[in-house]
């Protein structure tokens, strides 16, 4: 566990009497992309500030890059894009990056290359001499991402990195995150854009009202896919389908869960071979958004219950020849 980039246990933060974060545990390994998901005000940014030492935890312990929380030396190897990306408007893009090279105490001889590389990655080489205040909001966010990439940090923390970007920019950010993972850097992606998190994150922690209410890999969280089948003309459809997985009777058909979707043609063939008629074959994959909305709206316990599918492996009631409604 000692090679973890981020390790935090029981992090708690109170602002006055308001609990911003409570009992948060985090573990991020090198080359891992962790998504912190949560609605507005869930405590994501507070968690990031605690990791960066910008705020002090009320309780809990942790380390970043092998140093205790709040140790400034760790920040030399961290790149950070704040949610509120504001930089001195009178500086040019190149001057801003140079300023951060100095603040990060990077070796002077590397500044020029680091700056050109960062500007190239975020697509702003042609605007290097423009004042920050003259750049569009999206370009300022790209520039902020460039600032976070200076010095090839071992940990990159991106707080809502695509909030001002167009779809092309968002795709670029995904590519940058993958590249960071590829060179072994750990990334913490703070976002409420579920699709973004789903596409790039290895692990996800869902935070709600300051508490982690679910965590795991995206695959673990969303679970295995299912296949919904609407059939008629079979006396015992469950016996035909159960070889593909546990079968559940639903209002609008039968649900095979979990199901290897590559075997869908076999399901079709089996129903036809048994003399049945197929009205619908629908692969079902719960999305992170489904899970997220359920968790946030209904609370953890209810959501878990709702997503736990009632598995039936025995015969179900006599099917009807009528097509399902």
């Amino acid at each position, binding site marked *: 566990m000692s090679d973890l980039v981020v390790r935090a246990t029981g992090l708690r933060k109170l602002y006055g009497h308001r609990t911003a974060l409570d009992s948060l545990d985090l573990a991020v390994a090198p080359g891992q992309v962790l998504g912190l998901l949560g609605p507005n005000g869930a405590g994501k940014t507070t968690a990031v500030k605690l990791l960066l030492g910008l705020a002090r935890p009320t309780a809990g312990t942790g380390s970043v890059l092998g140093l205790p929380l709040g140790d*400034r*030396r760790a*920040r030399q190897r961290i790149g950070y894009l*704040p949610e*509120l990306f504001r930089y*001195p408007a009178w500086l040019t893009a190149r001057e801003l990056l140079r*300023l951060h090279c100095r*603040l990060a105490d990077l070796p002077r001889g590397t500044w020029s290359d680091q700056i050109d590389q960062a500007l190239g990655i975020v697509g702003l080489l042609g605007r290097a001499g423009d004042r920050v205040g003259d750049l569009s909001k999206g370009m300022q966010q790209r520039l902020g991402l460039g600032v976070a990439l200076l010095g090839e940090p071992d940990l990159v923390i991106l707080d809502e990195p695509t909030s001002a970007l167009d779809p092309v920019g968002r795709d670029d950010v995904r590519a940058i995150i993958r590249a960071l993972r590829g060179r072994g850097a750990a990334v913490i992606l703070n976002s409420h854009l579920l699709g973004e998190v789903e596409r790039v994150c290895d692990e996800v922690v869902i935070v709600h009202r300051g508490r982690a209410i679910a965590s795991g890999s995206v695959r673990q969280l969303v679970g295995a896919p299912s296949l919904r089948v609407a059939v008629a003309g079979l006396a015992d459809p469950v016996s035909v389908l159960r070889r593909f997985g546990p079968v559940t009777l639903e209002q609008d058909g039968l649900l095979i869960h979990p199901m290897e979707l590559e075997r869908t043609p076999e399901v079709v063939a089996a129903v036809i071979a048994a003399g049945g008629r197929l009205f619908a074959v629908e692969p079902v994959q719960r999305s992170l958004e489904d899970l997220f909305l359920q968790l946030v709206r209904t609370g953890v316990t209810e959501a878990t219950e709702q997503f736990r599918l009632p598995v039936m492996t025995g015969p179900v009631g006599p099917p009807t020849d009528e097509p399902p409604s």
Partner: protein
Amino acid sequence: MSIRAILVITELTLREVLRRRLLWVLLGLSAVSVLFVGWVVTQLVAQARDSGMDEARVMLGVSQVLVIIAFMFSFVLAMSGAFLAAPAVASDVESGVALAMLARPISRADLVLGRWLGLSLVTGGYAVVSAALAIGVVALVSGYVPPDPVTAIACLVGQSIATLTLALALGTRLPSMSAGAIAVVAFGGAWLGGFLGSVAGLLRAQAIVPTLDIVRFLFPTDLLWRGVIHGLEPPIIQLLARGVDRGSYAYDPFVALTPVPTEAVLWSIAWIVLVLAGGVLAFRRREL
């Protein structure tokens, strides 16, 4: 705390002031003011000499004009210092600029001290150039050279740094407008305390003098203001003050018969250090 980081922030502050052309605007306005003052003093001196006034009285009059100019200038410096320093940290926090910088391996003290050093250099440099220009122009057109212009300018610089320090320290916790306004009011209050102290002395209202001294002690710009006056007024004031008219000179708010006591200078320096330290501590405890 890191000297390297402090100097990075200092340089950033200096470049910001230069880039925003604020310093050049202030210097330009000062140059215009000094030229105007030079013209006025030329006219007054010529008029006085034509009327047959003896040279000692002319020089005394010019010295009083110079003190009044310094008085106005000290207010300009205090206002400039307060309005430059109040948003120095406060705006960084309000805008979010501080967040990106403090995520680097620098401390909050580095940010506050770097801002303070940069602004002190700007304000101090501006004070030295403008005051030297005013004294030089007056000397050129009237022939009056103050006895201790270096001390006078040093005390002006001290006044402006004290005001900007208070504004910057308050800005670590308060919104920039509040911090600037409080610093300017404190400067005015201290001067008023000194002025009323003189009036109280003149009226022999000794009972309220200690209270007014406390006001001057709490914000020591008026102590330094006495140093400005003493450095600018001619030795003839000392001679006059030894005569029968001593009482009125002793309590004149625009006359200082004695130099600033060393204790007052030391207290002013200590005050700046304490207020700055308070600002650093307040900023360290602030939730960003």
